[in-house]
Each structure stands twice: as C-alpha cells, then as structure tokens.
C-alpha cells in the first residue's frame, strides 16, 4: 500500500539565517570560504556543558533535528535516519592525529567513541528516547538523499507514522585542505553571491544541517509531500536529462508541469554544465539555486530540499536564489536536481497540496538571469 508522505516540518542551520523558520528572508553574503554556519543559541536542545564537548556536526545536527520535531508539535520519531558525508571528522582527527604523531600513544578514548559515524543519529535517539530504527548513511553527495529515500519508504510503503530524516556536515580545517588539494574547492576567494557566474573549476566550501519530519499526514503548516526520490551513480546509464524525464514520467508529469526547479549549481563551471540540458527542458519553471547560499558540501542538498520546501510552502524565495523566473507564480510541483562531482546524483519531487497559497508573492526576478 502506497501512502502519501508529507513533510510535516523542517529545520535548518547553515550559513544563511534559516533556523526555526520556514523562509529565508535576508540572504547573508560572504567574501571568502569555507562558509560557516550561523549557529543559533541551542540551549533549549543541547545541554551547554555537553554541547561544548560535542563536535560541531553533532551540535548543529542535534539542534536542527530537535527544532524540526518541536516545530512539528513535539512529534516523537519512530525512526531516525541521518546522512553525513564525513561524519564526525573532528573527533576522528582529535584521536587520529596524536596517535600518528606520538607513536600510537593515544589520548583517552572519548574522541574515539565520538568519532563513530553514527554518533549524530545516536545522540538524537538519546535525546528523544527513540528506540526504533536508527540509520546513518555516509556516501558523499547522496548521504542525505539516501536518508530521505529510506524515510520515504518507511512512511510511504512500510506504514510508519513519523520519521525524522536529515543531513549534517561540518568540515574541519584539515579536511578542507585535503579536499582543496584534491581539486574540489576554488583555490581563491570569490563572493558567494557571484560564484555561479564562475567558469573555472572548484566550488565554495560550506556546511550545515537540515532535518525533516516526515509523516503520513500533513503538519501544522501548508502541506507539502515528498512524491519520490531517485539516486543514481554517475546519473544512470544514460544522461542526467534522460534520468529526469524518466523520473517525471513515472508520475505522469511532463517537464512543463514543474513549477520550481531547485538546481545544484555550485559555481564549478565545468561541472555545472551537466545541469544545462535539464534547465533547457524546463523553460516554464522558475529555476533557483542554493549552493551559492550554503556552500558546497556532501549534504548541501538537504539545504536545497529545505529551500525547495520553503518555496513551495510559503510562495517566497529570496531574489538571490532565483536564476530564472518562470511563467507561473503559483507553485505546486517542485523538483530538486543535484549532483556532487558528477558521481552522486539526486532527484527529489515535491508537491504542494491544497489550494493556491493565499499570499503567494510573485517571485522576484533573478540576480543571475544573465547567466543564460
């Protein structure tokens, strides 16, 4: 039995002021990178003493997770599913580097315990007394969408009522250096709001956490449902464009049906070209981007989904997010198209249910319309 899967509520922490709200009102501009999270006071959710000992990815993950549950009316999850590309890298390094430098004389085991990649999901389970299903995916750019696919299956196909899914990432300075040297980051600083015009390689590095309370019924706010999730390595056997059309076909939708396209452009010129055919095929949709706002990181698409959800739900998107203004102001169908390093590809289809949003504003024209 297939049931609709709703996003009851969501919460995000990241380089944009998005905590405990469903809309991004005022976009934060940065001149360099990595872009760092604006960490709100989390006293409500994370004991300050324990919080200080917790590494950032766990702190922002726990904060966003518990805030999302709060916003969903104090929902208790039956399952907790987290995606994180690097997991608890800070604790890993805290144990690992002294070990290498001191002939395997290791510090106390606390850092080792905290380095376990499922630590964030475990912390959320402890905080919510959730003894149900607890999973963590660590697979680079599809870490979060793997969690989303799993949660979508749990609610839509396996009868669970409330499932918490999310992504969290915070890069350490050392690993930032490693990744920069491996060529995935820009070697120089570029203002984040300009980066999508870049033609050279590399992206701006970012971080953040975003969590979603999935449920079998809508939440307190306007209802948005997760229609489907598709993940593929290298975009599948054909092109990304083929993959997108096949995905929409499965739901009887033509490309023209999509109202809002959330695209994973990150300013890495050569890699961004992968999106162009998809954008060309969806001329009626409004095109928006998110990675120039949050930076690129393994679970950036969790923020992308947050922004897509926010746009469908509130009818509002900040002008800085919009690349191309579509033909329709009402938004029902939203599509996230994202890849990481041309390997990990994700497609997510959302639908806003119910009548037109009463205060849907006409979307502002994009700052980057000149891109195409």
């Amino acid at each position, binding site marked *: 039995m297939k049931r609709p899967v709703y996003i009851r509520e969501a919460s995000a922490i990241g380089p944009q002021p998005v905590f405990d709200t469903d809309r991004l009102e005022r976009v934060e501009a940065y001149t360099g990178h990595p872009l760092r999270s604006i960490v709100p006071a989390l006293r409500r959710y994370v004991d300050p003493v324990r919080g200080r000992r917790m590494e950032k990815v766990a702190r922002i993950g726990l904060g966003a997770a518990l805030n999302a549950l709060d916003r969903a009316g104090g929902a208790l999850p039956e399952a907790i599913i987290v995606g994180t590309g690097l997991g608890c890298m800070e604790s890993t390094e805290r144990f690992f580097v002294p070990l*290498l430098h001191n002939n395997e004389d290791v510090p106390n085991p606390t850092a080792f*315990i*905290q380095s376990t990649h*499922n630590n964030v999901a475990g912390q959320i389970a402890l905080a919510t007394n959730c003894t*149900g299903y*607890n999973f963590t995916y*660590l697979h680079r750019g599809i870490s979060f969408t793997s969690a989303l696919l799993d949660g979508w299956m749990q609610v839509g196909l396996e009868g669970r009522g409330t499932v918490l899914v999310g992504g969290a990432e915070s890069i350490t300075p050392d690993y930032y250096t490693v990744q920069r040297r491996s060529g995935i980051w820009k070697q120089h600083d570029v203002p984040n709001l300009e980066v999508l015009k870049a033609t050279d390689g590399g992206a701006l590095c970012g971080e953040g956490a975003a969590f979603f309370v999935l449920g079998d019924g809508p939440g307190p706010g306007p209802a948005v449902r997760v229609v489907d999730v598709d993940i593929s*390595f290298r975009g599948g056997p054909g092109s990304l464009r083929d993959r997108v059309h096949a995905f929409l076909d499965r739901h009887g939708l033509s490309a023209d049906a999509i109202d809002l396209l959330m695209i994973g452009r990150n300013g890495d010129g050569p890699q961004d070209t992968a999106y162009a055919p998809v954008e060309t095929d969806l001329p009626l949709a409004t095109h928006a981007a998110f990675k120039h706002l949050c930076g690129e990181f393994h679970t950036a698409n969790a923020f992308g989904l947050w922004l897509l959800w926010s746009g469908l739900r509130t009818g509002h998107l900040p002008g800085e997010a919009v690349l191309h203004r579509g033909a329709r102001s009402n938004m029902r169908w939203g599509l996230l198209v994202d890849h990481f390093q041309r390997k990990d590809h994700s497609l997510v289809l959302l639908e806003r249910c119910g009548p037109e949003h009463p205060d849907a504003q006409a979307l502002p024209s994009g700052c980057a319309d000149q891109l195409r």
Partner: protein
Amino acid sequence: MSDRVVITGMGVISALGVNVEENLRALLEERSGIGDITILPTRHRGVIPVAEVALDDDALGALAAPRSQRSWTRTALLGLCAAKEALAQAGIDPAAARTAFISATTAGGIDKTEPVYDQFYLPEIPDEVAQYLGTHDPGDHAQRIAAELGFNDLVTTISTACSSSANALKLGDRLLRHGLTDVAVVGGTDALCKFTVNGFNSLMILDREPCRPFDRDRAGLNLGEAAAYLVLETEAHARARGAAVLAVVSGHANTNEAFHATASSPDGTGAYEAMRQALAMAQLAPEDISYINVHGTGTLNNDASEGIALTRLFGSAVPPFSSTKSFTGHTLGAAGAVEAVYSVLAIRNEVHFANLRWRTPLAEAALVPVVRTQRGARVRHVLSSSFGFGGNNTSLVLSAPVQQG
C-alpha cells in the same frame, strides 16, 4: 503476498581465506584466522592479536585486479575482491539491470591516509601520496568499486558501527520488496588500521589472547579485517533468469537502545528486541530457529547482555549457537555480511560452526555454545545478529530455499 527476496551470489575475503571456498574449509576444519600482526605497521605487533587477511597491499591489489591500481585503499581492495566473487557466482552484470550497490564500512579508507597524513600538508605533495587525497571517507570505497564494476543506479554506504553491513542487507531486502530495484549487491568492508586498533585498545576491550566469546573468563575481542557481499533479488527475478537460489531472506530488524554511546544495556533489551522483531517479520517462532550466529564479540558487556537476551527470547531451549568471531575476529563494518555468508554456508552445508576456545558458561546466562563443528545438522532457519556502538542492533533471519507451501 510480496515476492520473497533470495540470495543468489556470495563473496567473502577474511583471515580465513580469499574466497567463500577457503572460508568454508577453515570453518569446517576449525582453523582460526587470529594471530600476530604481520602486515599493519603498528607498535602493537606481537602484543595484540588480530585476524589479518594474509596478503600485503600489493598482493591484494594483484588479486583484486582493478583496471588501475591508483588510489585504491585496502578497504576498497578487500571490497572489490568480495564483490567480484559475489557477482560472478550470481552471474550478474551490474550495468545490465537496475542493480543497487549498498555497501557498509566503519573505518572507510583511513588505512591509506594513516601512513601519509602529514604529507598531505606539504607544499609539494609527491604523486604516490597525492593519489590518496580524499580517499578517507566512507563513501570512497563504494564509489570506487561501483565505477570498477559498472554500477550506475543506487550506490550508497551505510555506517552504523558494527551492525553496518547487516543493515546493508536489510536495506537491499526492502528496496527489492518495494520494487525499487531489480538486484541489490549488499555487504561491507573494513581493513585493519591503526585508528581502530588503537581506538578499541583505548577502550580496553581487546583480548591479548585469541578471543573466547561467551566464555565466563573472556577478556575482550580481537579485531579482524574482511569484506563480504551478497547478491539479492526477488525469487521471481532469480527464477526468470534461471539463477540458483542459495537462501532466502526471511526477516530483519534494526533497533536502537538509546541507552549509551558505546555500551549495550545490561538487560539486553536492544538485542532482545532486534531478534524478536526479526523472528516476527519472518513469521517464525523461536523453536523454528536451527542455528544462531551470535554477535559474540567476546567483550564482557556484549556477551553478557546478548546471553541474557537469548535466554529471554528462547527460554531454556536456546538453539545451537556460536560466534564465528572466534575465527575471524570482529571485522566491524564487514561483520554482518561475513556472518550472513557463513549463515548461508551453515544452511547449504548442514553444519553448525564451532565457537572456538570456549570452556565455561557465562555467569549471567548458563549457555553452552557449539564447541566443535557439527556436521549433518539440518539447518532450516538461521538467526544472525550484529550489535553495534550506539546501541545499534540488527538481527537477520536467513532460511533454506525450500518451496513455499
């Protein structure tokens, strides 16, 4: 009635051997793979025993035979060996159908980062070092193996500590039941590395001798390295292409104790619930289980709580059980898949494997494991458990491929 999910291929590499056949022979002959460290460069050589795959990285690379040897970590090479064996047995080309690759690991590719870490930060990085930039994270091995073998659909990696690859099997089964993929290659891989050896050593749970799971006088676990993958598909899909069915996936459950970051609850609630729910999904009663491949790490904490959970679930009639970690050590992210392979071998070869070095029942539960290899045992349903850090518990029920009623 949804179509049953069956196993049609398996591959494993561990301290017991580089393929399924070698692993089976060692198990039958009660030859443990636990011994002194010979390959991992660590000061713990001669002090901490482990279960190493008896091939250095060059020999392992030659065996795994990727198209290019560049950037392959030991974790990825182990995985490639086992994945190739599983695909060959099943006769599956990952590029031909919707074939998911669901892998699992705990340490990922850190093994190759360890020897060169500081060189990552030199002004000029030598090429032999640069090849390992960004191979540390858990997803690296799965992408590398997927690219090598031609996977192009869902490729993902699970990391839930010691239950990781049991959870890969669980996810594969669910995807198939829902018709979201046609074939799922599931399993995990973990190479020995300084990080885990020193980590577990700092927790003071490594036995200085070969481990003694479920023994009153046990003194901890031994670490091992391994990879194992299984090919899953629906029974209809297997039939349609004429593939031989090795076993059936009957049940699985994942629970979380929400008790403590590393320890299991002393009353074994999480373990009990995982086993109970897996049986419920399989629609089996406790007495239907012919053999249990227990988690049985050999630590004081695990074996006590697992023993209590077994007694709670099975009462005075606990089925024959053993911990094959007494052969392979604890292979962490690979353990669930390795033990799933062994469970299928138990079914197919009508055998209960031995729990080596056992002498005295636990103080917490008067349980006697299988102490010598039992041949000629009729094995219909096997329960295999993997319990991890963070109280992440997974149990699987695998069954003989009899015709359904």
